[in-house]
């Protein structure tokens, strides 16, 4: 009833988790059966180990939060030699979020992940707002976005999802550019660039000054962008941004998303993903829907 497909990727349900909010899955194994997920996207992985930005890295805002972690991770070699072997037995789609500061770095990471048998897809992160070099810089210009996707496409042979930034004037234009460059799918939205000030100390709340806004506050923006992109491209769209309930997930599907990712909601309820899956199934039953694909892009 909930089966969907993203290019060659078969998902038992449309529910995945968003990169940077779910660690390597293991952190949530006490709370949910990870095998129930349609898939999960692991922490952004770069060519070498990164320490990330200084603390403070987050601040809570109304119905949301800003973060500026800055891609802290152990690097692709550590992922391949250690983390991969701890999670590869899972019966779900493990997707690696691939980040970098240069086209060479994106390609090198993608190539190394390509060799891992149990990783069926990558999510190319050309939209991280919290790193000085690369990241969002690649995702805000259609030509730059196409260039990096084209380069990665040459070395990466499985399902290539490209994660888009909402911090652009026309997201559909970027989506079309990466589709043309060989992307199999696009996921959106990454966080919205924001800022918060501690008025007592008269300085920014975060060490990096600006950060990415996530949580329910961004959901209407994300739904709008998913709808715009779904009408502009033929490849499947993965929707994310503030999803907390099954109803939120269904809203994204109706806007045109084939699958969704749950992010910040994992912090509020570590078992939320399974509740969303169960809720979607119940919703389908109560609305006489036999196949969830019937409602995808219905709006």
């Amino acid at each position, binding site marked *: 009833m909930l089966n969907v497909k993203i290019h060659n990727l078969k998902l038992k349900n449309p529910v995945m988790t968003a990169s940077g909010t779910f660690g390597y899955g293991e952190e*949530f194994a*006490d*709370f949910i059966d990870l095998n129930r997920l349609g898939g999960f996207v692991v922490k952004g992985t770069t060519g070498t180990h990164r320490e*990330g930005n200084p603390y403070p890295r*987050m601040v809570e805002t109304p119905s949301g939060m800003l973060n500026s*972690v800055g891609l802290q991770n152990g690097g692709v070699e550590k992922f391949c030699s250690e983390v991969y072997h701890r999670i590869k037995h899972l019966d779900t789609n493990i997707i690696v979020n691939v980040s970098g500061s240069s086209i060479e770095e994106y390609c090198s990471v993608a190539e190394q992940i390509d060799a891992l048998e149990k990783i069926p897809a990558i999510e190319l992160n050309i939209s991280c707002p919290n790193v000085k070099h690369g990241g969002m810089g690649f995702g805000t210009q259609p030509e730059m976005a196409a260039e990096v996707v084209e380069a990665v496409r040459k070395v990466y042979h499985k399902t290539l999802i490209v994660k888009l930034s909402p911090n652009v004037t026309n997201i559909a234009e970027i989506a079309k550019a990466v589709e043309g460059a060989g992307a199999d799918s696009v996921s959106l939205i990454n966080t919205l660039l924001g800022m918060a000030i501690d008025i007592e100390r008269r300085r920014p709340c975060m060490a990096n000054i600006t950060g990415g806004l996530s949580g*329910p506050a961004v959901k209407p923006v994300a739904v709008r962008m998913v709808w715009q992109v779904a009408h502009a491209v033929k490849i499947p769209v993965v929707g994310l941004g503030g999803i907390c309930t099954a109803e939120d997930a269904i809203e994204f599907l109706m806007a045109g998303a084939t699958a969704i990712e749950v992010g910040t909601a994992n*912090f509020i309820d570590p078992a939320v993903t399974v509740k969303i899956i169960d809720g979607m199934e119940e919703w389908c039953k109560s609305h006489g829907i036999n196949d969830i694909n019937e409602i995808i892009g219905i709006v």
Partner: protein
Amino acid sequence: MKEIHEFTILERRQPTPQYVILVLGHGGTMQPIAPGQFVEVQVEGDPRVMLRRPISVHDADAAKGTLTLLIQIVGNGTRRLAGLKEGDRLNLVYPLGHGFTTDIDAASRTLLVGGGAGIAPLLHLSKALSAKGIRPSVLLGGRTASLIPVHREFEPYADVLLCTDDGSMGHHGMVTTHPAFSQQWDMIYTCGPTPMMKAVARSAAERNIRCEVSLENMMACGVGACLCCVTDTDQGHRCVCKDGPVFDISTMKKWYQC
């Protein structure tokens, strides 16, 4: 194992205007909670409060299935928690983090140094040490008497020493100026404001005393997934929620020296 569970508030007390004590009942078999571990509490009914609030465990009784939180009222989240009544439900993710080392020699001369809300986990720690035959000294400090929310509760398990910056209770001065602080100890545990913990850690390091500090950074996930709450350590950034909140200062030179 960590679990998400809805507890019932069995008892609510307010020892001072700035603090509230909530005794929570599990209603079933509660997971074991080590001293220094914390819980993430869901706060309902305020759009400004979306994330759970990390609160250290003041006391836990596995046999009775109860845990006690000592909460300092500082912002929208804790103010909301302080407004809860007996009988209300509270959703917790627990037990989280890496707690204090209690596996120490029974003859150890042990000092616990707490400041303000940092006093909270030291009661659970005192009880655990007491159960091992160690009677620690507990040095509690605050700016003024009303900011030391509890101290009599420690008396069955520890020798209690008090100090206030304004001299309104106990020794007049900061914890590091208390005469007992400069005695020779085998182990010092500390939890409280960062400048206090850094001063305690520096002094312990100079005197070659083993010391553990319990940090309190802002958190989102509480389980080591989001990497928001990191602290500097000698091995680079580490999550306070997962690798801490308790750290041995032998790995924290970079932190306490700055």
